[in-house]
């Protein structure tokens, strides 16, 4: 059953058309990626979902029109957005605190998850004392403990070095298999999209429209054994992206 459904959403900033026509859906427990060139307006879609911006078109959550945006989504921004002045434990409880959970109760809810997120022993550290990968794991922990219906991940590993990014992708895939979050991931990394997703929406350059929806039939866990199959899929998607014309007349499907 589809949890999130977006129908013919458009958005323009002044005269600049950013989203031309976006329709997509995310089912319960499904990991879906939005893949597109940089500057295609992928983040704008998240702003519409979280209610930071308003556009045309229809958005539904569990069949009902999306109005109370904050209730459904836990949003993880591009950079980790950890507050430098808060210790890691207090950074991860931030969402709960905003929801009105008492600080002590919030801490006791988050603390048991530190080991699983590879952060045990770093509760009292400040973000500046952590490596990039650890910071991203802390940011993800802050996102998932909000216990919203769905995760919105905006290029969460974009700022990491290649090796750390690969490690984080594997770790996230493993975590996802455990928790089965309903998740929507924005990325411009083909390999990342194939590795993590059940389905991928390929977006055109600005103004963005969905040019292709791709199912990823690869078995989970996504280990290196499936590398050959994923390689074929990656090449196919890369082809689509490279053949995209930035011109307006380009038709999809």
């Amino acid at each position, binding site marked *: 059953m589809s949890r999130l459904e977006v129908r013919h959403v458009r958005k323009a900033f002044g005269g600049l058309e950013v989203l031309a026509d976006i329709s997509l859906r995310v089912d319960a427990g499904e990991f879906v990626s939005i893949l597109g060139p940089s500057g295609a307006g992928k983040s704008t879609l998240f702003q519409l979902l979280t209610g930071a911006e308003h556009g045309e078109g229809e958005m539904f959550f569990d069949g009902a029109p999306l109005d109370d945006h904050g209730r459904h989504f836990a949003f993880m921004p591009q950079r980790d957005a950890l507050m430098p002045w808060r210790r890691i434990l207090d950074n991860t409880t931030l969402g709960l605190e*905003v929801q009105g959970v008492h600080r002590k109760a919030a801490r006791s809810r988050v603390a048991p998850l530190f080991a699983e997120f*590879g952060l045990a022993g770093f509760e009292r550290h400040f973000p500046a004392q952590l490596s990039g990968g650890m910071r991203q794991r802390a940011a993800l922990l802050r996102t998932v403990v*909000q216990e919203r219906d769905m995760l919105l991940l905006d290029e969460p590993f974009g700022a990491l070095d290649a090796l750390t990014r690969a490690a984080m992708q594997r770790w996230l895939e493993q975590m996802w298999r455990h928790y089965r979050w309903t998740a929507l991931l924005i990325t411009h990394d083909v390999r990342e999209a194939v590795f993590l997703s059940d389905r991928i929406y390929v977006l055109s350059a600005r103004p963005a429209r969905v040019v292709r929806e791709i199912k990823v039939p690869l078995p989970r866990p996504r280990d290196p054994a499936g590398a050959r199959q994923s390689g074929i899929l990656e090449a196919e998607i890369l082809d689509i992206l490279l053949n995209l014309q930035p011109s307006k007349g380009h038709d999809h499907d």
Partner: protein
Amino acid sequence: MASSSFNPRHLAGLFAQAAPAVISIGLLLVAWELYVNHSGIKPTVLPAPSRVLEQAMLNRDALLDNAIPTIRATLIGFACSLSAAFALSMLVDFFQPLRRALFPVFIVSQTLPLVAIAPLVVLWFGFGLTPKIMLVALVTFFPMLVALVQGYEATEVEIGQMLRSMGAGRWRVFWLARLPSALPYFFAGLRISITYAVVGAIFAEYAGAAKGLGIYMLNAKNNFRPDLVLAAVGVSAALTLVLFGLTVLLQHLAMPWERAAGRQTAGKGPHA
């Protein structure tokens, strides 16, 4: 955690940092002393540092007596200015149009020559504490306001977006993100303003006061006692340095994460 920053190595580092300044000031004083001794210049024109120190010790009761009103004016004036700057910075942050309306007025206030304004303020408000507080506030208010407003603006965009996605309203965003983001700017402004504050107080007293370092300097000058003028200057410099040191200490205590950033825990624990 906080106590770990006061270890001996840290102190030794502090001395090493201060050494060049101490040496250069020391050399300057020695050169001054030698010049006065060898040129035979009269002490009523240029007294030697040793004489200034000697006279300062002899007149320490009078100096202290006059330093207290200056300290009081500085601290009260600065506290008023800080409170006003904080209140207004919040107002400006919440209602952006106010910024365009008010900032030109404040900028003009910064162009007023203190020499001209100080006697007028004394004329209007008398020889008491009020005009001193007002002048201290006048010179320190705007730098503090600008520091705070800039600090709020420096909040990471992503942090704001994330907080709003969590359901935080403007107050929560201000309290949780904008205010802490402004702290480094606030302390930078504080360090600059506190030095202005002492000068402002002395200027106000110079224009007219019953007591204070400013009026003490004026009287000493009129009595042809440059040694006492310089002794009072030394006291005001020491006062400024102490206040400056206090702001540094305050920043140190208020922003423990700044220190933490310095000691990276490289190689400790599992890195991704």
